[in-house]
């Protein structure tokens, strides 16, 4: 818990992203197997995070798979949001958190998600300036997007289990077809 009264806290849930330019805002999220990518442009003073969980089967994570397209989509939403608020792609830097190995039967999901984030950022040429992924405990993450400061607290075993239980419904695949815009 932060004691700073002036801080405006904004919570980001799974499947969401937030971009802010207000230095008093702290973005927070709770991660089990999920991964959050924190990105900012230090010059423009804009930053944000996303929070995602891709299904971890090798098939789903294959490069041409729906899960990968979904993950890329969430990354792109965050990047587009940053660019819209004045960030420049060549100045972006990232930190990644989460991807805990929380329960045996989904043992590789967190790892796969962290791997996806790392690979995406490398492919896009966005430097990773900080990372805390893997491990057996979930994380409570706080990120000050404008300064790039990040702080995390390890969840207890019970908290981790609760968090992971809530993550049990990973968004399996892209939105259903009827969400697509189409005309003629």
């Amino acid at each position, binding site marked *: 818990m932060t004691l700073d009264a002036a801080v405006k806290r904004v919570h980001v849930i799974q499947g969401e992203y937030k971009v802010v330019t207000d230095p008093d805002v702290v973005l927070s999220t709770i991660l089990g197997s999920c991964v959050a990518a924190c990105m900012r442009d230090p010059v423009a003073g804009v930053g944000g995070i996303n929070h995602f969980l891709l299904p971890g089967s090798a098939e789903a994570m294959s490069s041409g798979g729906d899960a990968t*397209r979904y993950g*890329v989509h969430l990354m792109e939403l965050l990047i587009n949001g940053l660019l819209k608020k004045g960030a420049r792609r060549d100045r972006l830097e990232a930190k990644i958190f989460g991807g805990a190995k929380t329960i045996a039967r989904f043992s590789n999901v967190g790892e796969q998600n962290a791997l996806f984030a790392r690979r*995406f950022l490398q492919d896009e040429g966005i430097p990773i300036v900080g990372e805390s992924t893997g491990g057996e405990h979930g994380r409570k993450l706080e990120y000050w997007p404008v300064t790039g400061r990040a702080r995390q607290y390890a969840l207890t075993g019970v908290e981790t289990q609760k968090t992971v239980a809530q993550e049990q419904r990973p968004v399996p695949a*892209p*939105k259903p077809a009827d969400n*697509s815009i*189409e*005309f003629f």
Partner: protein
Amino acid sequence: MSIAEKIKVLIVDDQVTSRLLLGEALQQLGFKQITVAADGEQGAKIMAQQPHHLVISDFNMPKMDGLGLLQAVRTNPATKKAAFIMLTAQGDRALVTKAAALGANNVLAKPFTIEKMRAAIEAVFGALK
């Protein structure tokens, strides 16, 4: 030779990963002649020098966005008949209206599925196989 093999496609997206994914999806649909560009400006230059039958372009890009590219393609007599499919990460109605007014053949929301992509392309070129 299938129809897909004969069609020259130009992919325009500022994200490396998105270009790779779209390229892979198109290969799965049987396309062989695929060129890539990193923004609208580069896409317009490629189209002017070497017209492609089909342009699949992202909307949100630096330098020249998808609408700018669409306009450039439609105003050049050599490329004005090319099929143009716009992709957008933000499902924005206003964008669809603008794209339609400028002559886009379709607008697909990301993340697209391969079947959606196939349907959008087949709506222009007929069955790919």
